[in-house]
C-alpha cells in the first residue's frame, strides 16, 4: 500500500505523468498495431465501425479476434464470444490491481476500465502492489495512439495494402516480449513464464483462443506451499 503522503493530489499527478512517459514506447508500438487493425477492418466492417470499436472497446486482441470471425462470415454472437474470451485475462489482472485501489466500488470499477496489458505490467511495483495513477497515465497515452492509428489505418488502407506484408503482425509478440523481459528480472519469474508459455501453447490446439492465455495463470501457483 502506498503511504498516505503518496496519495496527495500532487504525488498522484506526478505518478500519472510518470506512467504516461513509461507508456509512450508502448503507445507508439500499439499505434502500428492499430493501423493494421484499421486496414484489415475497413473492408469487413466499413469505415465507421472500426473507429467506434477502437474508441469504446479499446482491446487489441479482442478486436482482431472478433474481426476474424466476422471476416469469415461468422455471426455477432460468435464474434463477441471470440473477443470476450481473449479479454478474460483482464479478470486475473483486475484481481491483481484491486488491493492497490483505495477508492469506492464504483471508483474501482471505473479505474478497472483502464486495464490494458502494457499499463498493467508497467504499473507493477512488485510484491503484489500496483501504482494505479501510473496505470491510468500509461493507458491515457495508449488510448490516444490506439485511436489515432485506427483512423489512419481506415483512411490509408488502400495505400498500405496487406499489413502482414510488412510484418505488422509481428509487432504484438515483440511488444509483449518487451514487457516480459522486465518481469523476468524478478526472482522465480523464469520458471513461471516458461510454465505459463507451455500451458498456453499446449492448450491452443484444443481450446478457443484466449482460454489458453487465461489457463496460463495457473503457472503463477507453481511452487507455492499449500
Amino acid at each position, binding site marked *: 500500500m502506498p503511504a498516505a503522503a503518496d496519495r496527495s493530489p500532487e504525488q498522484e499527478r506526478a505518478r500519472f505523468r510518470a506512467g504516461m512517459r513509461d507508456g509512450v*514506447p508502448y503507445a507508439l508500438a500499439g499505434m502500428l498495431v492499430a493501423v493494421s487493425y484499421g486496414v484489415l477492418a475497413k473492408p469487413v466492417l466499413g469505415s465507421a465501425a472500426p473507429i467506434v470499436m477502437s474508441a469504446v472497446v479499446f482491446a487489441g486482441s479482442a478486436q482482431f479476434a472478433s474481426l476474424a470471425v466476422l471476416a469469415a462470415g461468422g455471426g455477432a454472437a460468435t464474434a463477441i464470444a471470440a473477443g470476450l474470451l481473449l479479454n478474460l485475462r*483482464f479478470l486475473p489482472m483486475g*484481481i491483481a*490491481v484491486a488491493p492497490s485501489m483505495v477508492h469506492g466500488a464504483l471508483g474501482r470499477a471505473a479505474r478497472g476500465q483502464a486495464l490494458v496489458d502494457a499499463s498493467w505490467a508497467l504499473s507493477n511495483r512488485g510484491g503484489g502492489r500496483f501504482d494505479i495513477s501510473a496505470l491510468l497515465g500509461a493507458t491515457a497515452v495508449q488510448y490516444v495512439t490506439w485511436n489515432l492509428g485506427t483512423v489512419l489505418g481506415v483512411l490509408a488502407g488502400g495505400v498500405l495494402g496487406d499489413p502482414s506484408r510488412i*510484418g505488422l503482425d509481428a509487432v504484438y*509478440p*515483440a511488444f*509483449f516480449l518487451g514487457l516480459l523481459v522486465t518481469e523476468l528480472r524478478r526472482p522465480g519469474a523464469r520458471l513461471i513464464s516458461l510454465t505459463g508459455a507451455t500451458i498456453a501453447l499446449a492448450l491452443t490446439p484444443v481450446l478457443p483462443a484466449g482460454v489458453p492465455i487465461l489457463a496460463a495463470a495457473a503457472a*503463477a501457483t507453481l511452487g507455492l506451499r499449500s
Partner: protein
Amino acid sequence: MNATVWITVIGLVVGTAAIKALGPMVFGGRDLPGALVRVIPRLPPALLAALVLTDTFTGVHRSLVLDARAGGLATAALALALRLPLIAVVVLAAATTGLLRALG
C-alpha cells in the same frame, strides 16, 4: 451485415467493461485471501509469456504454426538483449518478418 457489426461492437463494449470491472469491484477495498496474495505477484510473467507465444505461433483454426513471425520474435529478443528502445525492437521484428515473407 451492418446490424451484425454494430451488435458485435455493443456486445464487446458491455462484456469487456464487465470483465474489467469485476476484479476491482469484488476484490478491492479489503485484504485478499492469503493464497491470492502469494499468487498475484507471480501472474505477470505467466500471462505475458502466454501472450508472446500464442501471438507468435497460433495459426488459423487453433493450429500451431512456425512462420515468419518466429523470425520477428527472435530479432525482438536479440534487440531487447542489446537494450535497444522498444520502438526499435518492434520495428526490427516487423521488418524481419516482412523480409522473411518477401524471401519465402
